[in-house]
């Protein structure tokens, strides 16, 4: 663990070298989309450190670069400038298993639920080799177990279009988790669900995190969700996107939905809300 004081030091190259790297580290990352006049600065000189096994939520107004951070950390896009490190290496080269769940379930319609969840095991080492060495039935049992953990027991042979949106999203979470990722990226995975399904899945997510301890980066619009799930909440500002607040969530685990109505919980979400609302004018000021 890095001493907290080091965090406040200015980033000189020497300091960056001498300091042990966090599991995920963004170092003065700037990212712009497009070119010329239509250029949009999504992220501006952003630093972020995530320790292994931590659960971070990114909140902020739309267009503040939350999803950009996720895409940078997974290597789906490359930073315009600055460095992204995962497990001490520049992103892309790291031997880290990554799981990702998106706002849409993005299940492959020609595969059954079982086959969809099986997909990462066909791709990601070391499971890839084991898959070829026909440990398929073992994998199948594992998938069935995970599916029943999220309430999808008995649906493994259904096709995605035969299921409701909530069920597809559950399956999508399973697909993000089946290969035991060390790093889990959640891009508003509960955003399109009704409130009750959402709250139920928060519980499932918390349980999964507590048993497996992956490092999680959750992007969300829902402040209650962030406060319920995360250990740390980073508040972002829009255009240019940057992190303006980074605070720990003190509530003990396992957290419950009832806790979310306690005064200190609502006080936290209230404070986050204020911060995001005040972060808005910057958006108007910079065209």
């Amino acid at each position: 663990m890095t001493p907290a004081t080091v965090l406040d030091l200015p980033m000189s190259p020497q300091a960056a070298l001498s300091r042990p790297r966090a599991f995920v580290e963004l170092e003065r990352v700037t990212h712009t989309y497009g070119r010329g006049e239509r250029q949009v600065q999504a992220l501006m000189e952003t630093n972020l450190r995530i320790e292994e096994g931590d659960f971070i939520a990114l909140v902020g107004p739309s267009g503040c670069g939350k999803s950009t951070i996720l895409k940078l950390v997974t290597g789906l896009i490359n930073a315009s400038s600055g460095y992204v490190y995962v497990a001490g290496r520049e992103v892309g080269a790291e031997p880290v298993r990554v799981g990702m769940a998106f706002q849409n379930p993005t299940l492959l319609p020609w595969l059954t639920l079982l086959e969809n969840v099986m997909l990462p095991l066909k791709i990601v080492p070391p499971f890839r080799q084991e898959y070829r060495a026909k440990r398929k039935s073992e994998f199948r049992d594992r998938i069935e177990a995970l599916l029943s953990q999220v309430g999808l027991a008995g649906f493994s042979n259904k096709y995605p279009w035969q299921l409701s949106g909530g069920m597809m999203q559950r399956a999508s979470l399973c697909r993000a988790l089946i290969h035991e990722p060390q790093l889990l990226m959640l891009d508003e995975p509960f955003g399109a669900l009704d409130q009750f399904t959402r709250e139920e899945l928060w519980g499932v997510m918390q349980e999964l995190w507590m048993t497996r301890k992956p490092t999680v980066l959750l992007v969300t619009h829902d402040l209650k969700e962030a406060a319920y799930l995360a250990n740390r909440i980073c508040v972002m500002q829009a255009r240019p996107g940057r992190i303006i607040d980074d605070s720990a969530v003190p509530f003990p685990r396992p957290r419950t939905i009832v806790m979310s109505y306690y005064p200190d919980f609502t006080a936290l979400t209230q404070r986050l809300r204020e911060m995001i609302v005040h972060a808005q004018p910057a958006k108007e000021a910079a065209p």
Partner: protein
Amino acid sequence: MNQQLRRRMGSTALIIGFFVVWEVLCLGFGVRDIVLPRPSEIVITLVSRFPGIWPHAVQTIYTTLVGFALGILFGVLIGVLIGSSRLAYDVGYPLLVGFSSIPKVAVVPIFVLWFGAGTVPAVLTAMILCIFPIVVNVATGLATTEPELEDVMRALKASKLDILINVGLPRAMPYFFASLKVAVTQAFVGTVIAETVASNKGIGNLMMIASSSFDVPLVFAGLLILAVLGVGLYVLFSFIEVRVTGWARRNDEFAMG
């Protein structure tokens, strides 16, 4: 189920009705068989001269299927290339459109020059006629793959080949099968063109000889055979299509396995 049965019976009745009307009109207006033979005459010709027609039909089926198979092979390869690479798309597409705009009858003599008259030019003509729809459809299917589906794979650090096999190709399957239905009829056209121009075997050749001796019922018998063969292959590929791409139509039979 009852409704489906009624629909099938209705369509069958209409198809039979078409031939009945043809028969009746020919009889009613006294059309001579040298102009337009009646369906019954065509069938009689077909049955009575079957031993003579059969080797030609076999030759045509053989040529078409070989050309079609080659067309699928190269069509899918070129389609994958064009659909997954920007450069190949920019270079390949204009070339392909230009090439397919050339009337294929004009190409047959060139093939004959290169390979001599016979089966090879017919196979090649069938191939180049059916390759275009396959390439275009496979390329379209790959190029329109949802970026989100690719992101799922890229987040898993999948290679380009992994993405192609697990996402691109299955996604392109409905497009591919749609193109096969067009392509298989095109392959027949290609074969028959080549057989009419330069061959001593095949339905195309048979029809050439029959029409030069004004044996019109035999010409129509040849046409009938071609039509039946075309419908047969079409049905075959429709059958495979439902099995493979039922997900795209959210077909419940497909979901039952």
